[in-house]
């Protein structure tokens, strides 16, 4: 089975994000970079499929030079080879277009993405990629079975859970709950150093980037007015005061 997992390198969830004074982007100084947490579920699902069916797992990532560390992490988890697309700062459509250009020659049976990257929080790339590859998609998936050339996926929606069947090849975007991602083992890390990674730029992929969505400006989040701590020693009195404030001041109950 030909399996692809798309991984993005993002700031660690604990990272302090500071906007540059001119609002042109974030200050990358001091940030620890990690694999997007949702992509870890995608890589794990890819490795499980390979273990069950044989085949090969290719990880594909687009980003600046540091992105190579994240590709190596996926290889250390057990992926077989990597593709590093050296384009920085593309929007969702162009990212998907570059990924599609790199993936189409692999002729995948299944492509995994995360349901969302926790830096841009856009949740678009997996779906756009499916459209550009001309294959179906199942998004935000918490359960997966692959058999007889078909995918059966579990997808939670508001107040229900769907069981969706899709033809293959397809794109599946991973949500927390799909599995427990493994850690890279020490031998895994050693082996990863020797695994092949293809490095390609836009020209090698035969694409040109025309931005569709532009970040005109970035700003720090709006400051919340300081809150009120309800003073006192008696829990009942404090509770009564809270209920009064919610009713009369905030008018939310």
């Amino acid at each position, binding site marked *: 089975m030909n399996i692809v997992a798309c991984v993005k390198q993002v700031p660690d969830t604990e990272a302090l994000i500071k906007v540059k004074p001119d609002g042109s982007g974030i200050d990358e100084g001091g940030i620890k970079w990690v694999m997007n947490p949702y992509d870890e579920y995608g890589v794990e699902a890819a490795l499980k499929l390979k273990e069950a069916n044989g085949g090969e797992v290719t990880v594909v990532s687009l980003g600046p030079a540091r992105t190579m560390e994240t590709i190596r992490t996926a290889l250390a988890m057990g992926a077989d080879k990597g593709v590093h697309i050296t384009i920085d700062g593309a929007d*969702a459509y162009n990212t998907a277009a570059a990924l599609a250009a790199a993936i189409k020659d692999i002729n995948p049976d299944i492509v995994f993405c995360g349901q969302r990257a926790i830096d841009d*929080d856009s949740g678009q790339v997996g779906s756009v990629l499916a459209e550009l590859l001309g294959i179906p*998609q199942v998004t*935000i998936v918490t359960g997966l079975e692959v058999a007889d050339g078909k995918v059966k996926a579990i997808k939670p929606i508001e107040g229900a859970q769907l069981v969706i069947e899709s033809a293959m090849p397809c794109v599946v975007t991973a949500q927390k709950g799909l599995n427990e991602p493994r850690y890279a083992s020490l031998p895994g890390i050693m082996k990863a150093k020797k695994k092949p990674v293809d490095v390609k730029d836009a020209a090698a992929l035969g694409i040109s980037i025309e931005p569709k969505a*532009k970040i005109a400006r970035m700003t720090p989040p709006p400051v919340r007015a300081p809150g009120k701590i309800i003073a006192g020693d008696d829990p009942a009195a404090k*509770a*009564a005061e809270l209920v009064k404030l919610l009713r009369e001041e905030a008018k939310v109950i």
Partner: protein
Amino acid sequence: MAKGVWIVAEQRDGALRKISFEIASVARKLADELGDDVNAVLVGSGVEGLAPELAKYGVDKVYIADDPIYANYTTDAYSAAVAKVVKENDASILLLGSSVQGKDLSASLVGKLATGMASDCTDIKIADGKLLAIRPMYAGKCFGEIVVESYPQMASLRPNVFPAVENAKAGEVVKFDAGIAAGDLKTKVLETQKDTSGKVDLTEADIIVSGGRGMKGPDEYKIIEELADLLGAAVGASRAAVDAGWRPQTDQVGQTGKVVSPNLYIACGISGAIQHLAGMSSSKYIVAINKDAEAPIFAKADYGIVDDLFKVIPEVTAAAKKIL
């Protein structure tokens, strides 16, 4: 030239969802500023009767694809239908909700329409005749102002953030056939397992009472549930509580859980880790109940009580009972 503010109305089981009225209201406001019309696309089976409800929230025209093939939402069928009508009419702006269905449909449309989109926006306006969308990024640690250079200019809107405003318009119905045959579809819904608890989903709830590790165990959530029942609220949880197996994954609020925007979020025994704040900081009012005065949640809270939650929550329920 591209024209018209378009929305995709969301329905399930033949009923429009609240998010549809929220997007319609935003679309109406933008269209009035531009001197343009609001068109809604409604896809489903047996949904024609829903058009007047959309008209009530400012929709001039409702394009309806009504066919048994659309009985269940599937990405391929819905996306093909919406793409067809939006392309044929050269839409200028296209808005969807960032509900579960809206997330899926909007992203697929970005691919089909080869355009850009600002997802999960919390504010939206017109600047220099173009859409300017404002959205949290990096889990709300900063905000981005997005301009879409291609048409249609797409944005998805965070549920529960924009008010639904009544503003009656004609709601003229235009039926269309997207020419999709069952054989074209590559995905299908095999089963819908409904949550029979009848509770509102976290993403649609006006009030959420949420418990974290400070709850100590699964049975202790009873006091949270009592308060939630009284307030008509949904129950949420921190990841610590979900990972401990006290609450289901669907209750998790945060960066790897749900992003919620209720009017009132009551955090009980939750420290306020950055990943939790990512999921609830766009709530209108935040209450924190925590015995540690230094817990970071207090920095985000409008009202805080520093005390033992096991003493405070039952008293809150008792006090609320007196007035509700």
